[in-house]
């Protein structure tokens, strides 16, 4: 039982990172229909900026975290202004923004590697490597931090979409872009903000994960894959979908790793099989969504 509760904390931690990544996709996908696969690399940049701010400049965490979130959000925003905006403005084919973002993925990664090098870098966890126990649930302090931050971010995201005018505007754009524009919603600003928000959340995910694994220029790809899989499972329509999908993915993964009697090497194929399965059978995910365009 103690083992299982400990595992639950681990599921929460993994699920938290995947959920933030899934949210990063969602924030951009909903209003624009664009899948920004580069969020994995944005997470890496978040981790690197974190290393620079916290390990090198020795800034306090309360300063470092907002700095990371702001910086990566800004990078994402600039990317949108310089590339995606032009393509949308001239009505380029649907696949073009996706392709340009894939190219940006390579650029982010190489730029990160050039500036920060290819060796792993130590990213200091704000509460050290200590272990915390809340009742029967025990785990690393960083794991609890991740769970807490994810809960806060998702609560904020839910409130935004359900309770604020801007949130409703985003939903409107997702449902019918032209009607939304006719209603006076500034599409260009909304899209710009969605990219900024997506980037910020991705950067946060990278910052939160890096103390556990250390910051590395290759860490982005798995985050991007896992985040997308989580989104597919939970449903591309709603914020709750990102969270549910992420937790389910994390749960399945960890349960298999812990208890399944299959050889370790085959366990690696599980996330990919899940991804393929959901893509084929349930591309809308488990939770019903509002209208989604592809």
């Amino acid at each position, binding site marked *: 039982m103690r083992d299982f509760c400990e595992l639950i904390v681990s599921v929460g931690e993994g699920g938290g990172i995947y959920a933030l990544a899934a949210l990063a996709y969602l924030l951009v996908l909903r209003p624009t229909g664009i899948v920004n696969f580069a969020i994995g690399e944005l997470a890496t940049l978040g981790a690197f900026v974190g290393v620079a701010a916290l390990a090198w400049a020795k800034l306090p965490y309360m300063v470092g975290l907002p700095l990371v979130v702001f910086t990566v959000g800004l990078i994402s925003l600039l990317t949108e202004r310089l590339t995606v905006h032009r393509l949308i403005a001239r009505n380029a084919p649907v696949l073009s923004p996706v392709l340009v973002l894939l190219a940006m993925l390579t650029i982010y990664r190489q730029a990160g590697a050039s500036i920060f090098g290819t060796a792993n870098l130590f990213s200091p966890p704000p509460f050290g490597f200590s272990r915390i126990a809340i009742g029967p649930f025990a785990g690393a302090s960083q794991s609890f931090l991740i769970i807490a931050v994810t809960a806060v971010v998702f609560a904020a995201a839910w409130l935004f979409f359900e309770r604020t005018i801007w949130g409703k505007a985003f939903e409107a754009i997702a449902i019918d872009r032209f009607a939304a524009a006719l209603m006076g919603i500034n599409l260009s600003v909304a899209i710009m903000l969605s990219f900024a928000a997506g980037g910020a959340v991705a950067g946060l995910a990278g910052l939160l994960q890096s103390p556990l694994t250390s910051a590395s220029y290759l860490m982005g790809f798995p985050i991007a894959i896992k985040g997308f899989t989580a989104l597919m499972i939970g449903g591309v329509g709603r914020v709750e979908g990102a969270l549910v999908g992420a937790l389910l993915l994390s749960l399945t993964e960890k349960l298999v790793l812990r208890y399944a009697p299959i050889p370790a090497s085959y366990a690696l194929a599980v996330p*990919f099989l899940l991804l393929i399965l959901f893509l084929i059978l349930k591309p809308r995910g488990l939770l019903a969504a509002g209208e989604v365009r*592809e």
Partner: protein
Amino acid sequence: MRRALRAAAPWLVAAAALVALALVLRGYHADIYRKMLVTATLALSFNYLFGVAKQLAFSHVSFFGLGAYGVTILGVMQHWPMAPAILATLVVAVVLSLAVAIPTTRLEGFYLGLATFAVAQLFTIALRQGGDFTGGPDGLHGYAAPTLFGIELSGRRYTIVIIAVLIATFAVLRNLELSYFGRACRAVGDNSRAAAAMGIDVARTRILVFVVTSTLAAVAGMVYAFLDNYVNPNVFDFDLMFLIFFMTIVGGSGRQSGVLLGVVVLTLLSESLSEVVGSHSVLIYGVIVVIAILFWPSGLIGLVDVVRARLGWGARAP
């Protein structure tokens, strides 16, 4: 008779030029040339799948690997004669591509990309875990060059084989493009709903084009296997996929001449860049692709067309 000769002329000239280059180059330059030819063969089939049929398939390089491993495992490790080994590999490629294409027909755009990416990852895992059958993480090595009618096909003679396969792939795709099926492919790629409205069986078209191009990729793979007589999983990875992808976009997706231009330019660029820039070459490729998508959506071949129009040269069939 004259008409047939006139039609065949550009082909013969191209073939002659390629062969002449093969005979002239030696050592290092010959090696780059051969690898460029194989990459071009692979890029041509990818161009048709992605540039024309608009299927973002990241599994392409895996089929390339399948061809290479297939012919090596069967032809060398299991000691089958070459012809049945090649045939069996083609059959496996067709069957596997059907297995991938049929369930994913409904997926479009990025979602198809992700499904095929997952397939590619599974393929790599299978190769690495294959133990002695696939040579595991270190691959299969040390096999001899194939022989045809008693002549060993290595060195320059093998380059001729590569050229033959390249031209054959080009010809097959060309004929495909000019056929009714080719027009259907293009229609489905441009707008699948409109194509369906016109009576085209979208699912069947998409499946067929995936199978044909993936099998052509496998053919390119079979040729690759004997370049250095070594296959290993590291070659058929995402880096190569991105490279092919970049070549297609930068060269001009949808047009065969564009893709070939992209392959040549990127190969020569990486040769010269590696001396000067080294570590940042991938960064530069990324920037070039972004510039290409933003400012030259028709690729380098589009720019070539513009230059030609300015110079008043006649338009050539793409």
